[in-house]
């Protein structure tokens, strides 16, 4: 397969995503949720602080950690971009046009993943920047924003959101319905791992650590336990890759 065909499929997917207004509304909604969430968490961080002396470094919160906590809510807006890129095709029937233009199911899904991943990554950078700008002044004397660390956190947030976006895309291709996909995502990212962690039993905690949201959380927080951050990133990437494979298998097997 020539590179130009591949580029063509990517260009087509970008045209489709950028030509519907819902894409831009979703991005705007993401910005608002991030700003609100970062602002609120920053207020909590500043108010909850019981340390009387901000100069002794205890109780000082980094802007990056506020960002990372804000992602927990914001991700549900951002993953809608990956989700809608495929489920809207099933709803409107344009999936048949798409497969007529590009009969290779793998190529279609890869092109969509490239576009959804790039868009959610870019949006993630923007969200990280906005979140930092909101959180910094609210934290005031209880906050710190070392430049290199903050930039690193913003890039990590963007990477996390891009992988979640691709995960949503792959699942959407397999499940076809937006509502069903969102339900499964909510369960996978939050409900199931939270339930597993609830009784605080070691073996259940370790199972929860494998779930994409938890793994991504360990990556974002830079945790060294239960595994290094890179393993958290790889686990999340593995989930995204597996979802794409599942989506491709469904597209190949089922009639459009």
């Amino acid at each position: 397969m020539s590179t130009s065909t591949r580029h063509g499929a990517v260009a087509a997917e970008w045209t489709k995503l950028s030509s519907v207004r819902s894409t831009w509304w979703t991005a705007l909604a993401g910005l608002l949720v991030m700003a609100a969430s970062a602002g609120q968490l920053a207020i909590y961080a500043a108010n909850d602080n019981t340390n009387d002396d901000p100069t002794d470094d205890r109780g000082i919160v980094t802007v990056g950690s506020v960002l990372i906590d804000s992602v927990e809510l914001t991700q549900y807006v951002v993953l809608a971009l990956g989700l809608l890129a495929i489920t809207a095709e099933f709803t409107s029937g344009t999936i048949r046009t798409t497969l007529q233009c590009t009969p290779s199911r793998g190529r279609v899904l890869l092109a969509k993943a490239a576009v959804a991943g790039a868009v959610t990554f870019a949006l993630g950078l923007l969200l990280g920047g906005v979140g930092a700008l909101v959180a910094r002044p609210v934290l005031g004397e209880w906050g710190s924003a070392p430049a290199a660390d903050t930039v690193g956190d913003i890039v990590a947030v963007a990477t996390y959101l891009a992988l979640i976006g691709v995960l949503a895309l792959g699942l959407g291709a397999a499940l076809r319905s937006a509502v069903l996909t969102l339900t499964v995502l909510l369960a996978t990212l939050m409900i199931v791992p939270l339930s597993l962690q609830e009784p605080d039993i070691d073996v259940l905690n370790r199972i929860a650590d494998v779930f994409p949201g938890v793994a991504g959380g360990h990556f974002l927080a830079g945790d060294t336990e239960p595994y290094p951050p890179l393993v958290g990133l790889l686990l999340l990437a593995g989930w995204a890759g597996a979802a794409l494979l599942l989506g491709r298998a469904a597209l190949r097997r089922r009639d459009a």
Partner: protein
Amino acid sequence: MITLRGLTKRFGSTVAVDALTVDIAPGRVTGFLGPNGAGKSTTMRMILGLDRPTAGQALVGGRAYRELRRPLHEVGALLDARAIHPARSGRAHLRAMAHSNGIPTRRVDEVLDTVGLDGRAAAKPGRTLSLGMGQRLGIAGALLGDPPVLMFDEPVNGLDPDGVRWVRQLMRSLADEGRTIFVSSHLMSEMQLTADQLVVIGRGRLLADEPIGEVIARSTVAVRVRSPHPDGLAALAARLTAAGASVEAADRNELTVTGATADQVGDLAHELGVRLHELSAHAASLEQAFMELTADSVEYAGGPTGGGAR
């Protein structure tokens, strides 16, 4: 050239397309006819690689659709005019299609011009397009890659009379350029005006694949007889039935005879001394020919095991 070889599609225990073997040749308009649920759309979707055949194959230019690199240059198709994202403009819809197959974007304006959609119509979001405009947009998409094979599923649906005439001329001229045109329609009168060749299916099976003239010629010619004397007419009917013709009484003064020529009926009437007010032969229209061809498959659907016609 479209080649179907034993093409079969089953959905569970239902056979939608049953071992269809047909060649659809270039340079002419091939009409694809059949009652609702006969398997026309399923056949077209299998040709486009959208549905997987249960058995057999569908080839375009000798290759399976799923193997085509830039399929819009090989096959253009209009399947469903409503298949456009409600918020996406027609122009963006076509631009995305063009990108996917490396077609320059100026071609989008060319095909929009060909189908008669102006800039304002092409900028409107999909949800606001009328069915007719959707059909034109779908045809524009089919023409985008300038393909040698074109398929249209019910292309005149929702078009005004001008649009219908335009589609008819377009298909004619595309066929005259040597392209393969495969068009399905439930409008049999429309087929009579546009198609050169007819492929007729019923319940997924091939019923006919022949020039349109032969389909009509092969079907029965009916003779209408009117007389002011019901008794004489009854005697005539009895003689005709005895001679092997089939006779239907429209009312007391009129008969419709099949299986005998107007000459034979006239001679017989003269012999019996029945005064006639009308004796006329009626060539069957394509519509009648179609009804006759598909009668079995439709009847079968309403048979003792089925729950009525599908």
